[in-house]
């Protein structure tokens, strides 16, 4: 059973896993494709080229400023001969002395705040050097003779600034994705597992629950079959639900009940057959010597020709007693024979109420209370056999007590009819009830104890059943059930 449960759980897990793995595989492939497209070599080359291009443009701006600074420096050296320098109007230049004081500046109208500040020390010694460039302006410094320092500033064109920033951002993003490629793929797997593991656990739990719901009734059925096989006919499997599995459990219980009833019937029939065989043998063995014995007794009686009247009288009396006992034995043998050779049934459709009325007419001196249901359906039974049954039951009831009130009731029920013979006699002790239908069991002084055995046999032969309930001091009730359909013939072991 554990294997079935494992199969259920595994199936659920696989049902969850297969689409999830497929989706994960697709997602990963899509990511790989997207990364392959995004991180294509040509894209990288294009971005690097763009980066180099903006660097080149910036470099050109620096070179233009540097050239201007060099020209201004040369012009300053030749100023007395050639006049004051005239730098590029796009540049702002400032000349600082060795104390950092502003000596001269271009354009002349520029304020102090608009001019490039002197660079932080250490100051460059003899060549052009960086003087604090940023995204707004390029700044260079050129040392001159006598501790003078010429500082120039060239505004970065807005277009170049924006293009450079855009290219830098794109390149940075590209490079980060390129570096993070493996980690991104790994993260996707981790994200997949994080989403999938709860689903897997849920599906396993659902599989476990469903498997338990299905396997538990099967386990009950298996256990039930085992208990029944061990002879525990009272065991019934619990009906857990109203679905197909519940129906299976109900069918199992019904099957067990039918089997139990049939087994009881078979046991009763086998018992009856055994008793009948005993009766037949006994009848045969007792009946055969009875006639010679009776003849011999008569011969003994006839053979005495003496004059002793006393002896003659004793002989006559003794022979009479012997003949009486022989007659009793003959009656006993007849009853045995009747029991051993019950006539074959000839069932025919008939009305049970009619039978009751016919039998009741045989007892004009006793008041029988009849409660007959007029809607009783026609039943198939052997009239004579069933008459014998009713007579037996009535005799028992009437003999229980001269004052006993006897009631015969008929009523329909599902698929069968019921006949109840109840009396208000002294009742049967509880310890005798289980043996009441056994042959040769009787609580009466007279009688062979075959009446109720014959009754049970006839009812069983009809496919019916008879039960008895009794309370000492209150009376006894026999309940007889006959099926409405034609009974299936039972095979007797005679």
């Amino acid at each position, binding site marked *: 059973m554990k294997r079935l449960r494992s199969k259920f759980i595994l199936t659920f897990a696989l049902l969850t896993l297969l689409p999830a793995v497929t989706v994960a595989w697709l997602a990963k492939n899509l990511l790989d494709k997207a990364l392959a497209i995004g991180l294509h070599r040509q894209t990288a080359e294009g971005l690097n080229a763009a980066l180099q291009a903006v660097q080149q443009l910036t470099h050109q701006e620096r070179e233009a400023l540097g050239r201007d600074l060099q020209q201004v420096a040369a012009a300053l050296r030749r100023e007395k001969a050639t006049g004051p320098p005239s730098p590029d109007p796009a540049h702002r230049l400032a000349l600082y002395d060795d104390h950092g004081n502003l000596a001269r500046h271009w354009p002349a109208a520029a304020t102090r705040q608009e001019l490039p500040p002197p660079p932080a020390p250490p100051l460059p010694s003899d060549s052009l050097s960086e003087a604090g*460039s940023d995204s707004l302006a390029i700044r260079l410094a050129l040392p001159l003779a006598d501790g003078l320092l010429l500082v120039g500033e060239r505004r970065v064109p807005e277009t170049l600034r924006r293009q450079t920033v855009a290219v830098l951002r794109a390149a940075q993003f590209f490079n*980060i994705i390129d570096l993070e490629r493996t980690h991104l793929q790994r993260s996707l797997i981790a994200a997949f597992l994080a989403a999938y593991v709860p689903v897997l656990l849920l599906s396993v739990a659902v599989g476990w629950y469903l498997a338990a719901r299905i396997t538990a009734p099967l386990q009950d059925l298996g256990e039930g079959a085992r208990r029944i096989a061990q002879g525990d006919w009272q065991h019934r499997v619990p009906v857990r639900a109203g679905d197909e599995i519940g129906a299976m459990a109900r069918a199992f219980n019904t099957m067990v009940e039918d089997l139990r009833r049939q087994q009881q019937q078979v046991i009763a029939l086998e018992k009856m057959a055994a008793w009948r065989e005993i009766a037949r043998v006994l009848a045969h063995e007792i009946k055969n010597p009875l006639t010679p014995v009776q003849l011999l007794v008569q011969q003994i009686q006839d053979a005495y020709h003496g004059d002793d009247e006393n002896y003659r009288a004793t002989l006559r009396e003794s022979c009479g007693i012997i003949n009486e006992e022989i007659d009793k034995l003959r009656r006993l043998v007849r009853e045995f024979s009747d029991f051993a050779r019950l006539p074959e049934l000839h069932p025919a459709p008939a009305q049970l109420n009619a039978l009751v009325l016919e039998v009741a007419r045989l007892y004009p001196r006793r008041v029988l209370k009849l409660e007959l249901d007029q809607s009783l359906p026609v039943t198939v039974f052997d009239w004579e056999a069933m008459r014998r049954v009713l007579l037996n039951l009535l005799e028992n009831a009437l003999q229980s007590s001269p004052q006993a009130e006897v009631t015969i009731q008929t009523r329909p029920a599902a698929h069968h009819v019921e006949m109840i013979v109840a009396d208000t006699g002294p009742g049967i002790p509880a310890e005798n009830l289980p043996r009441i239908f056994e042959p040769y069991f009787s609580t009466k002084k007279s009688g062979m104890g075959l009446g109720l055995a014959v009754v049970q046999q006839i009812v069983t032969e009809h496919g019916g059943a008879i039960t008895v309930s009794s309370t000492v001091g209150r009376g006894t009730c026999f309940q007889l059930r006959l099926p409405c359909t034609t009974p299936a013939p039972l095979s007797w072991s005679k």
Partner: protein
Amino acid sequence: MRRLLLTILLLPWPHALPLAAQVPRITALTAVLERDSLLVDAQMADLFSTKIANTIRSGLPTVVRCDFRVINERDREVAVARQVMEISYDIWAQRYHVVLNHSRRTGSSFEEMERICSTLTRLPVLALAELPAVSTCRVRLQVTVVPISSRQNHQWRERIESADLQEAAAASESGRSGFSVNVSRLLSFFLGGQERVHGASAWATSPPLQLAGKP
């Protein structure tokens, strides 16, 4: 069945294995005692792979982490130290800056910057007072390149998540609504906020250094 399950579970993992990448090498390592400090001279090669070089050139700052382990005669670790080299590129000044041990050096080209980074000269590792009483010791060094710091990684995650925010805003404007799984947030969660290491050198060990004269 067990094998099948194992195969299914392991199926996605081979794709997640990191690819072999260029790693830095330490070609020379010497430890010296000078005044009250343990100093290190080291020469490195293949410090920056092409990807990392492109990252630096695009203006993203990169860190070269130098981890030092001082071991005694029995190869037991007695002290640890770390020095961090910060590299950045200023596109407007067209200069590479390297900051190490509070000193800033500038290179006008990538090659110059790489030369600066590849050579450690008299780099103070530990004060002599921090070393336990050992007669001789050796210094071990491992160099790790960290192109994406935790701060940058945080920005990177924000950028991924902002993609979903923009999509959500667009959906809201177009009148669409409903439940949706924020895949970007899930991804960024698993990307984590830690720094990313791309290439760590093998541990190199210096020749033994006599510490007998240590005060």
